């Protein structure tokens, strides 16, 4: 792909981010500005900021890639990401804002008056935050590599430096403006090329077989396989091969491959005839953004789908960068209205990735073989439109992708730095917050450089599953159930979140092997770990009735009473 437009576009996004952040810096003066933008962010600006922060690389590139490879089942991801906000609105939004706490650990302490639970919640926030930062940095590396051929680590380093600088300089106030700006940037960067692509599709006679299964080649296409893959054929396939297939070398030979699995060596060229079905590739550990867990879906599709639904629906409320945003609303009613606006904004955005996925199935089906289906969004403008127009649209998409990494990474860094400053570093001044920011970013950056080859993209799914089985019970029971005790909350978080963490860690480490009945159970832990977390929290709380904090009734009254009743009480 031509990088002469893409590089300036990425540079422009980075510069604009720094400038908008600097604008925030000029009006960010107090500690309160730093952490919660002095709680004066209105619903509209805040909703754009929340959406901008939430739509990460996984949304911008990952969903289209997943749909391209695995078909419409993968559309459950965006649906789940959106519905997660509805569940958040129903059970958490207004009481969380009224709790008056800055971060999740603050909430735990305010509700349960226990330092131990506070520290545990802090540990989970930092853990989930780092897990979620890792794929953002790796995605940035992938994008820059696809666009310019730069080394893998460079994109991650650029994102890390820009984010650390903006967050450390301006705190929450400047981040709010940056995020809001980036939502609109991301929407534009996906919407404008999508319109042109749909026009190109129309003028191409509007072929409709995108929805057929499996995807097929529209014309004769030469595919170069860079990394060795195993092709799974359900029907016999005829291809022309230059390279090594099943251990035998061919040069321009026409081969009839019978159904079954075939090993293609890296560097092989395959020429597919018009109308040939795109074979399914199986790869062990790619550096792509799409959760490779998805590959195990074939074994137990229904169980996996429900696991995905549960994790995303309930996990959203516990993501540290999502929750911290609610403290910036002026009051509980505004927090609710903000959430509705967020639902509208991200819902509108998620109408676009399926378009890219469907068009990718039509025009770039071979991406499933070459290893980075995540690049589909980046490559389609060039593939379908071409020329200067295609390059310009491609540059716009690349800029939007970088905005996605920058905004999500900023929000996560903000949340992790907040916890580090308040609970780990000695004092709460602005200087220490800056130190916390650097710490928050250095660890995932080091990890992304060190573990470059691992399927760290699983981290996104892992973050959702862990959050759904630890923070979701804490928030829901903490807000609605007066008999929750500190030992119960701690036990629930440890058992629910801990088991989800172990399960996915075991899957990533390759235990147990593919095909085992246990595999799907461990790869999609939410279906059992969420009930486990809730149950542990409830049972241990019931077993320790003497430990209900004495001020519980007053705290719950504060969570639920409308502000008009409360302001006079506290005055």
């Amino acid at each position: 792909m031509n990088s002469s437009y893409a590089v300036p576009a990425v540079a422009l996004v980075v510069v604009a981010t720094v400038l908008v952040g600097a604008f925030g810096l000029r009006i960010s003066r107090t500690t309160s500005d730093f952490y919660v933008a002095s709680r004066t962010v209105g619903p509209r600006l805040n909703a754009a900021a929340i959406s901008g922060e939430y739509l990460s690389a996984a949304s911008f590139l990952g969903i289209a890639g997943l749909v391209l490879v695995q078909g419409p089942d993968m559309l459950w991801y965006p649906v789940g990401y959106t519905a997660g906000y509805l569940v958040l609105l129903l059970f958490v939004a207004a009481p969380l804002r009224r709790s008056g706490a800055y971060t999740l650990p603050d909430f735990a302490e305010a509700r349960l008056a226990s330092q131990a639970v506070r520290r545990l919640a802090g540990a989970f926030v930092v853990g989930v935050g780092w897990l979620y930062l890792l794929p953002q940095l790796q995605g940035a590396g992938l994008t820059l590599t696809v666009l310019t051929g730069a080394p893998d680590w460079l994109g991650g380093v650029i994102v890390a430096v820009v984010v650390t600088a903006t967050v450390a300089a301006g705190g929450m106030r400047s981040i709010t403006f940056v995020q809001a700006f980036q939502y609109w940037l991301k929407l534009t960067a996906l919407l404008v090329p999508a319109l042109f692509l749909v026009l190109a599709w129309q003028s191409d006679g509007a072929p409709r077989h995108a929805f057929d299964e499996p995807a097929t080649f529209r014309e004769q296409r030469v595919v170069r396989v860079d990394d060795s893959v195993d092709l799974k054929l359900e029907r016999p396939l005829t291809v022309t091969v230059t390279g090594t297939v099943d251990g035998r070398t061919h040069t321009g030979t026409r081969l009839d491959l019978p159904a079954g699995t075939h090993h293609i060596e890296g560097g092989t060229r395959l020429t597919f005839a018009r109308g040939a079905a795109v074979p399914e590739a199986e790869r062990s550990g790619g550096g792509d953004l799409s959760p490779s867990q998805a590959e195990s879906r074939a074994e137990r599709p229904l169980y996996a789908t429900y696991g995905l639904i549960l994790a995303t629906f309930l996990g959203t409320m516990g993501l540290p960068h999502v929750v911290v945003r609610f403290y910036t609303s002026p009051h509980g009613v505004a927090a609710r209205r903000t959430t509705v606006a967020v639902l509208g904004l991200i819902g509108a955005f998620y109408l676009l990735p399926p378009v890219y996925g469907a068009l990718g199935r039509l025009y770039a089906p071979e991406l499933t073989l070459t290893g980075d289906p995540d690049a589909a969004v980046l490559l389609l403008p060039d593939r379908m439109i071409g020329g200067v127009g295609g390059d310009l649209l491609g540059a716009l998409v690349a800029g939007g992708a970088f905005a996605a990494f920058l905004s999500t990474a900023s929000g996560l860094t903000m949340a992790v730095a907040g916890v580090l400053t308040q609970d780990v570093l000695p004092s709460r001044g602005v200087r220490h917050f800056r130190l916390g920011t650097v710490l928050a970013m250095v660890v995932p950056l080091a990890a992304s450089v060190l573990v470059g080859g691992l399927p760290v993209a699983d981290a996104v799914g892992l973050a959702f599953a862990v959050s759904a089985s630890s923070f979701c019970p804490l928030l829901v029971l903490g807000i609605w159930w007066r008999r929750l005790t500190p030992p119960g909350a701690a036990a629930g978080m440890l058992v629910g979140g801990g088991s989800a963490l172990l399960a996915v860690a075991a899957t990533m480490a390759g235990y147990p092997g593919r095909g085992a009945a246990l595999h799907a159970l461990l790869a999609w832990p939410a279906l059992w770990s969420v009930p486990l977390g809730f149950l542990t929290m409830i049972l241990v709380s019931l077993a320790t009735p003497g430990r209900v904090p004495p001020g519980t009734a007053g705290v719950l009254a504060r969570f639920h009473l409308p502000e008009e009743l409360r302001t006079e009480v506290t005055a």
Partner: protein
Amino acid sequence: MTVPQDHTERRVVVTGPPRQARRASGYYRPRTEIDEQTTLGHTYVRSLMRTQLRAALTVFAVLGLLVGPLPLLFAAMPDARRLEWAVLGFGLYLPLVLLARWYVRRAERNERDFVRLVEDR
């Protein structure tokens, strides 16, 4: 001799504190119960929590009924690919937003009703 009769008719017998004053103290009663965290005050807060939780659970149930059967439906009809694309890709977002708006209206109405009850207006 003409005046006294009128005088006796205008005489007022005081049987308690002035009505105006008693109304004012009653006006603040539920508020003070809540502020001072008495058992009665907690009952008020509990009733608010119960109505809000009922609203949330209702919408949650609707969400579950809307989304829950879909994977089964798609699994039962593997040929209806286009339906799956349309529903998952484009069809679910509007209902989600509408559900959210419905809930926010209901929750805000519950809070208004509660304020009215507590302030005895």
